[in-house]
């Protein structure tokens, strides 16, 4: 008898009546009860569903905050403080939303690194991966604009620094974009208003892209820690109940961590300057973005003033790229390389478990990203500049040099014949390669 049974409630009369007209119940049955999922997914596969749940939490708390928030430069800061002091459980809603943004990024970064480690971006999941990168971009835009809303010092100065970046784009286009973002000639009330409007809109765009992301996922199903395709019923289990319960357990663990921040260290990941009302006449000593932007901020600042401007341009002759623009291009390039990663990595083996060299470079890359984050938080001076530059160059080298070369020269380990082979016998070389700890499969 197959493990993949339609649920009994599909036979219910009302359900059948509705389903005949709108097959929503068949859809649920198909995507949960009959949806085959590799049986060997480890806990790193929990982070996708966690991201989805946090997205919902963000939307619910965000809508509630919007009921009490006032997007006006003279009132925004105080309206947030009213939420904290006078709205019933306003402090709770705000702290959930504030820390939820950080949690969202932690989860999504782990989710992405999971993909990098197990080669989830490779065929046939390229579009799935690219949709993911698009989600990351949308999240960054949303978080950036959300941070502006409380209209504290970091809100204002962060908005000023980041929007000004676009002015580096030549031919007047940059200035046009900046004026459009500002709705005037400085970060001011018009800016705050449009940022609020867009901050409300973008999460729903993210929902839309997430739907596409999951649609693409359900076409070929999840990758898995061994990285080989599933080959029949012994390799898979129905999503429900196996992964619904596993995801719920993971959610519980996550909520504990989340609650520790909300209730006991709600401002740990924030910056004290944002409790000072925005003041266009007083610049903070160090303008630092939120922690989740720090690696990109470090890349932005890593480009030397005369790098392309005084050097490559002469060499190329016709490309006039100013240093500031080069920095901006590098920053966006850091995400753009993720888009094309499926085509940079031509190694046929997905999982790092069978790629002895890639595995090492994966960890070096992970450390490189942490170093970049660290440099982003430090003032750009002395040795920090050098470290930032080296780490930036390595970031790109990882994708543009290391990965293509590994695809050519790395000797990969032999793959097991199927996911279930190491479990039900077979043994030999293959079994050793796939000898995951039993807990990881639990």
């Amino acid at each position, binding site marked *: 008898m197959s493990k993949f049974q339609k649920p009994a409630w599909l036979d219910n009369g009302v359900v059948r009546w509705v389903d005949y007209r709108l097959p929503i119940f068949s859809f649920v049955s198909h995507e949960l009860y009959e949806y085959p999922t590799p049986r060997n997914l480890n806990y790193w596969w929990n982070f996708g569903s966690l991201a989805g749940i946090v997205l919902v939490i963000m939307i619910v708390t965000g809508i509630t905050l919007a009921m009490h928030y006032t997007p006006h430069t003279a009132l925004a800061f105080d309206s947030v403080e009213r939420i904290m002091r006078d709205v019933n459980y306003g*402090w709770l809603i705000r702290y959930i939303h504030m820390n939820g943004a950080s949690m969202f990024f*932690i989860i999504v970064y782990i989710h992405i690194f999971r993909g990098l480690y197990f080669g989830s971006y490779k065929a046939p999941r390229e579009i799935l991966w690219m949709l993911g990168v698009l989600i990351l971009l949308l999240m960054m835009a949303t978080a950036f604009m959300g941070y502006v809303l409380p209209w504290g010092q970091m809100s204002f100065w962060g908005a000023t620094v980041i929007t000004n970046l676009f002015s580096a784009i030549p031919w007047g286009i940059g200035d046009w974009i900046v004026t459009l973002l500002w709705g005037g000639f400085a970060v001011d009330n018009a800016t705050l208003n449009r940022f609020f409007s867009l901050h409300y809109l973008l999460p729903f765009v993210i929902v839309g892209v997430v739907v596409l992301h999951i649609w693409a996922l359900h076409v070929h199903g999840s990758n898995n820690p061994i990285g080989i395709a599933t080959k029949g019923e012994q390799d898979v289990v129905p999503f429900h109940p196996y992964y619904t319960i596993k995801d719920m357990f993971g959610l519980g663990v996550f909520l504990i961590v989340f*609650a520790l921040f*909300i209730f006991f260290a709600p401002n740990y990941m924030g910056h*004290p300057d944002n409790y000072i009302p925005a003041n266009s006449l007083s610049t903070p000593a160090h303008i630092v973005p939120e922690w989740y932007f720090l690696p990109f901020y470090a890349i932005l600042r890593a480009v030397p003033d005369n790098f392309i401007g005084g050097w490559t341009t002469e060499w190329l002759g016709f490309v006039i790229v100013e240093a500031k623009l080069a920095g901006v291009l590098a920053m966006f390039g850091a995400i753009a390389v993720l888009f094309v990663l499926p085509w940079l990595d031509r190694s046929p083996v997905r999982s790092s478990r069978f790629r002895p060299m890639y595995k090492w470079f994966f960890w070096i890359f992970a450390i490189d990203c942490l170093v970049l984050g660290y440099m982003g*938080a430090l003032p750009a001076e002395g040795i920090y500049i050098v470290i930032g530059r080296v780490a930036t160059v390595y970031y790109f080298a990882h994708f543009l040099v290391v990965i293509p070369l590994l695809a050519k020269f790395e000797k990969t380990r032999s793959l097991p014949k199927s996911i279930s082979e190491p479990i039900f016998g077979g043994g030999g070389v293959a079994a050793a390669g796939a000898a995951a700890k*039993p807990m990881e499969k639990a």
Partner: protein
Amino acid sequence: MRKIVTLLIVGISSMAVDTTVHAAGGGKTPPAHQWSHSGLFGTFDRASLRRGAKVYREVCSSCHGLRLVAYRNLIDIGFSEAEVKAIAAEQEVAAEPNDDGDVEMRPAILSDRFVSPFPNENAARAANGGAYPPDLSLMVKARPGGANYLRGLLIGYKEEPPGGVIVPEGMNYNEYYPGNMIAMASPLSEDGVEFADGTKATVEQMANDVTTFLSWTAEPELEERKRMGIKVILFLLILTGLLYVVKRRIWSDLH
């Protein structure tokens, strides 16, 4: 794979710590004080809040506002309604326009916010030699180091700056203030206020008390937050434990 988690935690915490240290650049790191309201179960020391409110009202309030706090909020920390009404009535605020359209002044009432000492920033600067005494409602949250910094600032004045440092006219040397030169003269002096509960008003005592009071104005939800947090965490621990058991049972037929 546990490495990823460790790395992330180390990375993130070091970043947060790091920004804190840098923003404070120039002043010494203030000494850590044992606050009644720190820790998982911390609550504000009521007697200290009461003394701190007195220090604020009798010393700081001549220069600094507390514009986000309403008089009625004092009732939450043990002041009686009559006491708070009396405190509020000492100040005047603009009333609604009367029938003739004139705006008159009336005594403040419970629902009013603390009346700031100066009508605007320019007036505040004019009265303080060009320096601006910031509003204190959120001060503890708005400085790296929080309560420890504020306490440090109040006890950190040095009559004799360390060798070679020249203190310009109108400035004062403070160990913990970033850059060390602050326009506010040491606001606290021994026995500057008289505490009703007989506590001796040393500079350090007053600094501790007013800092406790300003920690409350910055985070009036702190006690409720921590109390709820304990319950939520306990609930989640049990729930997660149960989910784990269920998960093991569901998966048992696969192992």
